[in-house]
């Protein structure tokens, strides 16, 4: 018995020492191992890290198996995918911990915090690959091209992700102010519509957001003259958050709040509670991300409140300008990158290009044949499972090569309209990637804006407090940042 226990103790101690010594060595060694060719059957292995797509996700495993089959069949490429399991929690945070530990997969999906990795020279410049690509260059949107010129390490060919306001169509149709709003969506007409819709729906308020007024800014910013991050004023470039236009906008929000049109509890709302009050009729309008998210809202609303409650997309408010906000083209805020340490960079890009091809798009956009879709008379018919489970992991260009049956469209009417509406009002922003030395100052400036805007809207501070805020904002680092902007913007 004693011997057994002693052996156990010895094993435990050796294990501890091994664990400790590995922690010191692995980070530097692991980088050289990434991307090496897999020995068995001559197939090349690509290590992939993607949100929610670890080896424990059976759908992801099947997806990459089918992708391997497609690559073999269509391009005669022997590729295997080694999926990396990312620890549960915030993806950007856990991914960074993985990368900083020295484990750098060949293909990496980022959801922020990629610049520090790029600054260390660990991400591949994608420009030459895209220039030589067969499919990707033809499906890129203008904003993808602009972003790639400024920051060539991330690629994310997806629709713009702005927030568009939606309302139940049955309520919208009953409101006499609806037609005026659609024809001429001024700020005043929006307010009139909000007032009427509260009465029609017998709701507690007209509009709510999930804790952050920025969701509403997408609709109203441009009407108040905020058409870019750095506004061209007489004094030179001025950040919109300290501009008179923002002051006017906050005054408008304050009025909405005072009149009970803006949810008095918007500050403590989360995304789930925001949707809950929308579905149960406590609020009439919510902003949602254009495209798939609007589809989800629409389906849920129809299930809970009947067919007539499907959603109507509202236009962006019209004033000095009109639109859902200028699009940041400084860089992709998320997307795919190839490790500069990978031994299979060309192969990884071939896979990305394949996913932009008609065959690759069929897998990525539609899922698995017989499960997520069926082909009937040469047309794609989507199944219930497609609508419930499937989402495109990689590219979502505007046009698809396959024909989808009208009875089962890729996106519902409201979602499709939201995409078109956002695309119609596309304009480019002049924001830039913040230099590292401004990160801490920017945090302080952002906190000031959030605090003052929340307090002004909710009436805790008078509108005149905006001027104090502007002074504090400049003192907290705004002055040097504004100088930097004026030195660098043309």
């Amino acid at each position: 018995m004693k011997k057994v226990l002693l052996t156990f103790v010895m094993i435990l101690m050796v294990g501890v020492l091994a664990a400790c010594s590995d922690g010191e060595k692995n980070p530097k060694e692991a980088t050289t191992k990434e991307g090496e060719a897999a020995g068995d059957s001559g197939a090349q292995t690509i290590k992939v890290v993607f949100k929610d797509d670890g080896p424990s996700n059976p759908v992801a495993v099947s997806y990459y198996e089918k992708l391997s089959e497609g690559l073999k069949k269509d391009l005669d490429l022997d590729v295997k995918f080694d999926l990396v399991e990312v620890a549960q929690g915030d993806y950007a945070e856990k991914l960074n911990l993985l990368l900083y530990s020295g484990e750098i997969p060949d293909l990496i999906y980022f959801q922020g915090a990629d610049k520090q990795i790029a600054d260390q020279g660990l991400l591949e410049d994608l420009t030459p690959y895209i220039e030589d690509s067969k499919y990707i260059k033809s499906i890129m949107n203008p904003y993808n091209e602009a972003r790639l010129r400024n920051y060539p390490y991330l690629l994310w060919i997806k629709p713009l992700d702005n927030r568009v306001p939606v309302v139940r169509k049955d309520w919208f149709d009953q409101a006499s102010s609806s037609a005026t709003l659609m024809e001429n969506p001024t700020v005043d007409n929006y307010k009139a519509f909000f007032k009427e819709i509260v009465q029609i729906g017998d709701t507690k308020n007209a509009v709510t957001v999930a804790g952050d007024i920025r969701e509403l800014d997408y609709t109203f910013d441009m009407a108040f003259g905020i058409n870019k991050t750095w506004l061209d004023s007489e004094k030179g470039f001025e950040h919109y958050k300290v501009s008179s236009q923002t002051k006017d906008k906050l005054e408008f929000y304050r009025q909405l709040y005072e009149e009970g049109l803006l949810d008095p509890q918007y500050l403590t709302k989360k995304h789930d509670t925001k949707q809950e009050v929308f579905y149960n009729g406590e609020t009439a309008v919510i902003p949602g991300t254009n495209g798939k998210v609007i589809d989800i809202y629409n389906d849920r609303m129809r299930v809970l409140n009947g067919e007539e409650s499907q959603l109507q997309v509202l236009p962006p408010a019209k004033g000095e300008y009109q639109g859902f906000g200028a699009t940041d083209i400084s860089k992709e805020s998320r997307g795919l990158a190839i490790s500069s340490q990978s031994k299979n960079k060309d192969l990884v890009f071939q896979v990305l290009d394949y996913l932009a091809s008609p065959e690759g798009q069929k897998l990525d956009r539609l899922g698995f044949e017989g499960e997520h879709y069926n082909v009937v008379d040469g047309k794609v018919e989507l199944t219930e499972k497609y609508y419930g489970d499937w989402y495109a992991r990689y590219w979502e260009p505007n046009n698809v090569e396959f024909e989808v049956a009208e009875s089962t469209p890729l996106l519902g009417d409201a979602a499709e309209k939201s995409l078109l509406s956002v695309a119609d009002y596309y304009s480019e922003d002049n924001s830039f990637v913040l230099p590292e030395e401004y990160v801490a100052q920017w945090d302080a400036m952002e906190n000031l804006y959030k605090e003052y805007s929340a307090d002004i809207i909710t009436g805790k501070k008078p509108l005149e407090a905006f001027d104090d805020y502007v002074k504090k904002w400049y003192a907290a680092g705004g002055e040097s940042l504004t100088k930097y902007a004026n030195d660098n913007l043309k």
Partner: protein
Amino acid sequence: MKIKKLIKRIREDWVLYLMLLPGITYFIVFHIVPILGMKLAFQDYRIIGDNEWVGLKHFKVLMDSSAFYDVLKNTIIISTMKIIFIFPIPIILSLLISEVRSGRFRKYVQAVSYLPHFLSWVVIAGVWISFLHPADGGFNVIRNFFQLPSIDFMTSKEHIRWVLVFSEMWRSAGWDSILYIAAIMKISPSLYEAAKIDGASSFQQMRYITLPALLSTVITIFILNLGFFMNAGFDQVFNMSNDSVNSVIDILDTYVYRIGILNGQYAYATAASLFKGVVGIVLILGTHYLSKKYTGKGVW
């Protein structure tokens, strides 16, 4: 000589030492070895290649940031409030529970008071936001019943720190009382019997037997708690914060999370953690020294 004694002891009670081994292993792997990683606070970390020594650069950036002093102030205020108002509650609760005569009722009270400890802060934040809702939250309904106006506690700068204190109290009081209840159970019943014969009331028994017997446990836990003084509750603040109150409850941990972790500036985050650790050690050693001097009792 001491080592020989220790070896002799280990030989005599080797089973007990064996049982201690997993705990020691845990502390070595997760608490001692990571201390070596603290050198990152003085380096610029490179994933490939050698890290670059930058001296006190990250500490300088930390100290130069105006936001740092705001979050430091918030951390100290919230931690002080929690120590003053929460620390005595488990002691009082354990004293009250030990006075309950019905065993079944005592178990029920203990179980109910332990439950919140097992809830995550996401859930607790949801519960408290609903409970304090200005329109139909339970607390404001009671206030309205007494003709008092509703208060939006979650967005009020004056009240939000109290929300943190009371929600933390609700979550931890029961669980933290376990140690004190265990210490009370250790007190010899003969002391209480003798006191009863001498005519001591229940309160006098508590005052002259229970409380003095608890003192060393209280002091030890108090000193150890001070080691976590700079941890004002990341999960709690993260889930209960909003734009209106962030300026008064933004603490060192949430600041480091935003600047250090989300922006991938790990060396900066390590510098902030090291700062917290040093403050914690100073507080532990300082309080231990003062406690030894004035009460004769300390952590060791």
